[in-house]
């Protein structure tokens, strides 16, 4: 274990732990105003929609809205199964299976 790498890891650990823990550690004793609570309640749907958009439409780090982007084709049945079953298990199985088929046969 090299000292320099160890320092990098410790620095990264702090740079990750602080934003994770600090808000809960410091803000829990305050009662948030209703407007702020409402705003915070929209964060989860917003973040998830952004993550879906990026992971499907820019899977390799650049925007790829093309017919050749397998992620878009796999997304369609995955979304349908998610909406109709509301089951994480069936959704994941569908997405993975469709992607495997697309990858190997197309």
């Amino acid at each position, binding site marked *: 274990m090299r000292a320099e790498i160890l320092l990098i890891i410790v*620095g990264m650990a702090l740079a990750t732990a602080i934003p994770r823990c600090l*808000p809960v550690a410091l803000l829990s004793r305050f009662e948030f105003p209703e407007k702020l609570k409402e705003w915070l309640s929209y964060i989860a749907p917003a*973040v998830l929609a952004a993550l879906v958009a990026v992971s499907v439409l820019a899977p390799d780090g650049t925007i790829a809205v093309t017919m050749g982007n397998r992620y878009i084709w796999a997304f369609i049945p995955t979304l349908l199964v998610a909406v109709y079953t509301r089951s994480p298990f069936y959704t994941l199985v*569908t997405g993975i299976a469709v992607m495997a088929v697309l990858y190997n046969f197309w």
Partner: protein
Amino acid sequence: MRDQLITGIRQAVPVMLAYIPLGLAFGVLAVEAGLSVAETTLMSALVFTGAGQYIAIGIIAAGGSMLTIIMANLLVNLRYFLFSTSLVPQLKVLPTGAASALMLGLTDETYAVAAVHLKENPATIPYLAGLNVSSYLSWVGSSFLGASLGSIITSTEQLGLNFALPAMYTILLVLVISERKHLLVAGAAALACLVVAYLFPATLGNLSNIIIASLAAATLGVIIRL
């Protein structure tokens, strides 16, 4: 209490599954970038974050400095500020020390799962511990395997596992939407993050497009009356 733990672990299964290809790939890339198996595993064990670790090994491979790595990580991790703050109202019922410690396990994925669950269920320590620790073990374990096995691992793409993460985001998005306003916010966020990424491609690399889009879309949600 035991039920809560089991619920947490059960809900972690999709996250654990999604972390396998990501962790394996991270392990392989980290060793290629010059890290040892022990260093790779320690990084996953102490940092436990996908994007930040991928960026770090990219900078290490390119011969970049420690300061660059830590600054890049701070930037990428800004989203955790947002996630953690958004959970504060639900976590108030727990002792602050324990709740803060549990946030060490906060990732995009554990946040999304917890945010969906805590909309309708009270927060408990066993639930959050079950969810976060299971996910953590999958990440550390698969990083170790990837680093140890290295190039023996053939493409996990053949197995379709590269779609585990998008599929999980999709079902969590569907589950988190419970009113029309959420649909509007989600649509606005998806559009905004693509527009930002299109105009400023660098934001895709550090995920800042996701932060900008989420802040904007949540604000739109508060302003607009449906």
